[in-house]
Structure formats: C-alpha cells, structure tokens
C-alpha cells in the first residue's frame, strides 16, 4: 500500500476537520478526493505530506510513518499546494533548478521524469513564473513536484483556475505518470474530474462517506433521478421538495435534479405541478446519475446546494 491511514484525526478547537479517516491506496493508483470547500480535503493532504501533525490515528505514506519518519517521507513525496506556490520573480528554469537542488537532485539527470511536461515550457524557460498562464504555471508546479522522482504525488486542487483545455491535458499527463508506478492523491472540487480517477473518495464535513470506482459509485446509486427545468424553478424549489417520495430537489446549474425514492408517475406529477401553479413551460426527464449526483444523494439534509465548482 502506498498510502494507508487508520482512524486519522485532525481537530481545530471544536471543529473536527478530518474524522477518523481510513484509506488504503495501492501503488500507481490515481485516487481522487472529492468534496466541497471546507470538507477537510486540504487538512487530510497536509497530514499526509507531514505539514501538520495528526491529532489521532495512524498514517503511512510510501511505507513510512508520518509522525516518526517525516524526514524520509519528504524525500519520497511530491506536493503541489492549492495555490501556485513557486517564486514568481524567478524564471521557469530557475524555479525548476532551485527545487531540484533543494531535493539534492540534478535537472539533467532526472529530466526524463518531466520531459513530457517540461518540453512544452522549454521555449519560455527564461520567462518569469509570475507571467505565465494558469495552465503553464500548473505544468511548472508539476515539474517542480516531480523532479526528485517521488513515489507519491499529492495534488491539492491542482486544476482550480485553469482553463478546460489545460485541465484535460493535465489529467492526460497524470494518467501517464501513474502508469510509471507513481501513486497520485488528488483532491478536487470538480466532479467531472472524478471520472479520470481510478477510485474516488467522497468527503464531507471531515468524513469519507464512500470510496469506490467512479462506475462503482454510479452503480450503487439508489432511487431514481430526473432533471427538471422551468422558467420559475428557482423560486419553486420548496413546492418541488414537498412532492411525495421526493428525497431531494437540488439546483444543478441550469436545472433542478430530483432525487426520488420511487419512479415519478407522470400523471400525478403533472397534476401536482398544475395544482401548485408552476409554469406550464416546464420539462423533465429521467437521467443516469453522475458522480456528483451520487455525492448529493449521500449527503444528509436536503436544503442546501453543495458548493461545487462547475
């Protein structure tokens, strides 16, 4: 196992940021940690990267204990924090060489590890890191995190603030890195990225609610799911939620997702909508659940829309 935790716990005063988390992540896996802001994703990553000490439980990274062997762990992990944390006043090449030296390796020797990523940056090698686009910054940060040949790579929301094309390219790169046997632990608020992971863990309020493959998650979805659109849907959520057997009605971008315990009976439902005076220009249809739907279905309490990025 590349990452292993048992009852891992982190508290900040009254708040339990990470609540007895158990993980078993094999080598070479891309593990996606998915959850809204404040779910405890960063705290979990910061414990695994030895930046903060756990308040309870055990954790091993690359076979080493995070509390006793933290110096050794630091040699075998790469970390990309959730903000761009390279020296903006240094050039691309200077940043890369500095981080290589910090880890006691040479860029020339380890170039193969980053060739694919860095070759696209090479023409701009002398440009200041602060002047790069989001996608380029991300590639540079990844190069710096990979240059010392880590066994485990931790990425905290790596694609925040990066355009769609760069995000796709980035995930393609991650896929190839994991094929080399590097374990990748990545947190993201983007549900669509979950599909690119081998397995995902759904995290909310410090708890990991489920760990499964993206397909496995969808297979375990219980109930029926519909999308609903109408011009007045934003103001009529309460009426929708009051419909019998309606588990949740959650705003989902430009539509409302209806989570049902039983299949919707078209006649009854239309009659109900009519009776409540909901706009006749509505439309609805059954859909198959996405990872985000699975996540919402698992959440307790129905009133709030989770703060997911789209």
């Amino acid at each position, binding site marked *: 196992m590349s990452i292993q935790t048992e009852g891992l716990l982190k508290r900040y005063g009254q708040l339990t940021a990470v609540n007895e988390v158990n993980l078993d992540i094999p080598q070479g896996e891309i593990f996606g940690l998915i959850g809204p802001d404040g779910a405890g994703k960063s705290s979990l990553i910061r414990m695994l990267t030895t930046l903060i000490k756990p308040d309870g439980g055990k954790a091993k990274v690359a076979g080493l204990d995070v509390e006793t062997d933290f110096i050794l762990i630091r040699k075998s992990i790469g970390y990309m924090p959730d903000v761009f944390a390279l020296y903006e006043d*240094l050039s691309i090449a200077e940043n890369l060489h500095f981080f290589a030296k910090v880890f006691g390796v040479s860029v020339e020797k380890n170039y193969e590890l980053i060739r694919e990523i860095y070759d696209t940056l090479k023409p701009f090698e002398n440009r200041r890191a602060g002047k790069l686009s989001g996608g380029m910054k991300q590639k540079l940060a990844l190069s710096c995190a990979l240059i010392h040949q880590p066994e485990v790579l931790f990425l905290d929301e790596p694609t925040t603030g990066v355009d769609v094309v760069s995000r796709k390219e980035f995930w393609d790169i991650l896929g190839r890195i994991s094929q080399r046997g590097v374990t990748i632990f990545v947190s993201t608020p983007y549900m669509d990225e979950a599909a690119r992971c081998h397995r995902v863990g759904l995290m909310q309020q410090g708890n990991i609610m489920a760990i499964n493959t993206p397909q496995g998650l969808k297979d375990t979805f219980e109930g029926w799911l519909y999308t609903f659109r109408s011009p007045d849907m934003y103001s009529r959520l309460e009426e929708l939620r009051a419909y019998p057997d309606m588990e949740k009605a959650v705003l989902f971008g430009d539509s409302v997702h209806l989570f049902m315990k039983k299949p919707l009976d078209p006649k009854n439902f239309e009659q109900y909508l009519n009776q409540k005076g909901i706009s006749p220009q509505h439309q609805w249809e059954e859909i198959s659940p996405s990872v985000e739907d699975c996540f919402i279905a698992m959440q307790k309490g129905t009133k709030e829309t989770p703060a997911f990025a789209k």
Partner: protein
Amino acid sequence: MRSILFFVHKELLQIFRNKAMLPLLFVMPIIQLLILSHVATNEVKNLQLGVRDLSHGLLSQRLINKMTSTGYFVIPSDKPGSKLARAASLKNQREIDQALDADQVDLVMIIPEDFEQNLRMGGSTEIQLLVNAINSMKAGVATTYAGSIIADFQKELREDGIIPSKKEAIRLAMPQVEIRYSHWFNPELTYKTFMVPGILALLVSMLTLLLGAMNVVREREIGTIEQIEVSPVKTPVFILGKLLPLLLIGLAELSLGLFIAKVLFHTPMEGPLVVLYVFSALTIVALLSLGLLISNMSETQQQAMFIAWFFMIIFVLMSGLFTPIESMPPWAQKLTYINPIAQLVSIVRLNMLKGSSWAELWPHFRLMLSLDLLYGLFAMAMFKKRSN
C-alpha cells in the same frame, strides 16, 4: 552545506530582480544619511530674542549687539544691516506677554533703566531674562547661552576699564575658577562628526531588521514556504540561507555609508575597519534573527511590518543616538544590553571617533555574541515549532 549556497543564490536573485528593492536598499539610506546628519543636532541656533531696553545707553546697546552677533540669538524683526534699529523692540510688559504667548520669542531680556549708571558706578545691576520653556531643552540651552554671553560681556567691560577697579579688587580678593573645556575625540564638538557614525549604524540596523521581518512571511504569503517545508531541507540550512544574503546586503550598505561619511563628512576613522565590520556583522545577525523571528510568527507582511516597527521605535529611541543612555532611568539603561542598535551605535562611535582597542571592545564583543545566540536560537526554535 552546499544547499545553503542554493538558498543564498536564490535570495540574491530575487532581491536584485525586484525593481523597487535596489533604490530601497541603496538610494534611500544615502538620502537619509545626507539629510539626517545635517538636522540631527543638539545645537540650538537662531533663538528668537526679545529685548526691552529701558536704559537706552551705550552699554545696553553693546550688550544687545553682543547677544545677536554670536549667531545664537536673533531679534525677530531684525533685518541685516539694521541691527540697532529695532533692538528695543518690546515697549511694555503687555507686548512682552504677547510675544511670549504667541511663541514669537524664546527669550526676553529686560535691561533696567539704571543699568549703565549702576555699572559705571561700580554697583551691581540686574538683567531680567524671561524664558519661553515650552520646549525645555531649547529653554535650557537659551539660558545657558545668554548666561555665558552676559558673563563674557562683564569680563569685556572689566578689561576695557569701564567697570571701576573697586570691582577688580573684589575679583582679586576672591580668586575665580575659570573652567576651560577640552573635548577629546571630537575637539570642536562638531555634531556631524558625532552623528554621522551613529546615523549610519542606525540606518544599517533598521534596514536589516525590516528585511529580515519581511522575508519569511513573504514566502508564507505566496505559499512557497510549504514547498520548502515538505522538502528534506533542514531548518538551520533554511535560516542560514535567509540570513547570509541579507547580511551581505547589510555590509554592502555599511560600506557605502562609510564611503559617504569619509568623502562628504570627513568623519574620522580612527579604529581598524576590520573591527567595525566584525561588530556590524554581529549586530546585523542579531537583528536579522529577530526579524526572522517576527516574520515567522506573522501571518502577513503587514503584521510583520507593524511588529518590526514596534521594536524599531523602541530600539532606535533607546539607542543613545538622540538622548544619552546615561540620562535614562536605571531599568531603561539595563534594557540597552539587549538592544543591538544601542550596542552598534556605541561601538561605531568608539571605533570611528576614538579608535578603541580590542581589549576595550571585548565586553561589547561578548555581549553581541550572546545577543546573536539569544535571538538566533530563538528564531530557530520558533521556526521548528511551526514546521513540524
């Protein structure tokens, strides 16, 4: 140890790449040195003198001339070339009160009607001095100056034979002690000689404390500190990597300041430069450690700035540069032991003006070393606490 060099290289790259940094480092302190060394002086000149001359005699006029010719006193409405014209400018008590109330004069001299008569007769006379004591230091200086000018005036009259020999007899009968001063290490008591080394020490200290305080917290703000923390780099390497480049900058600043002091102010440099550099380096290390400590305990550069200023104001005002340490209360005098700036100011003066020997500076050396250890270890201990 080689990894320290990578950090030094990186820091220097960053500092010299920052466009605002070079002027900040080298132009501003020079301007400060040029300006402050001219204005930071305890000498009081151009004291505003009000006169009410009731005697209207030759002797009273002579006294007034003597007062204004020294350059210490001027009569407010005095214009060059018309010294006598408005000497007796204040006509009555009301005008005197008004002038003092309005802060137009620092000193009012009232010469009595029978001034000349009494003097020539060999009798005694009184001159009344009213001092505006809003600024007690200025008032003190004004009184002293006036006192010595009047005493000098008296002596002149005696030498000219205006005061009769009867007075002379009394003087002979009561031998007077005349005090003559000889100011060592700064014979002409020129303030620039005295102030330039001190101001230089101050500027170098302030710069390094601020640079230290801004440094680590900046890496925390942009997040790079975490990248360093997850690397196998050891704390002492990181701290030394931060200290050394800033130390180099501090010493470069000192060199530039010394050059200006020599060329523009002809400040004496009696002691060996090596001693000066060793002590400056020790002081800078103590201040940088304190700065890094502040930096490490702050979340933002703004916080660090405020805390650094808190220490800076205390250190500077208690450095002995502007007010002598000897006149502070005993507890405050003890505080100067942990004040690196106070130590540097006194050492720079001892070295440059007096050329003190190693033996004389040894206690200072020991003290600075302990300050380095104190601040340095504290900075390192606090850093560890945060990273693990």
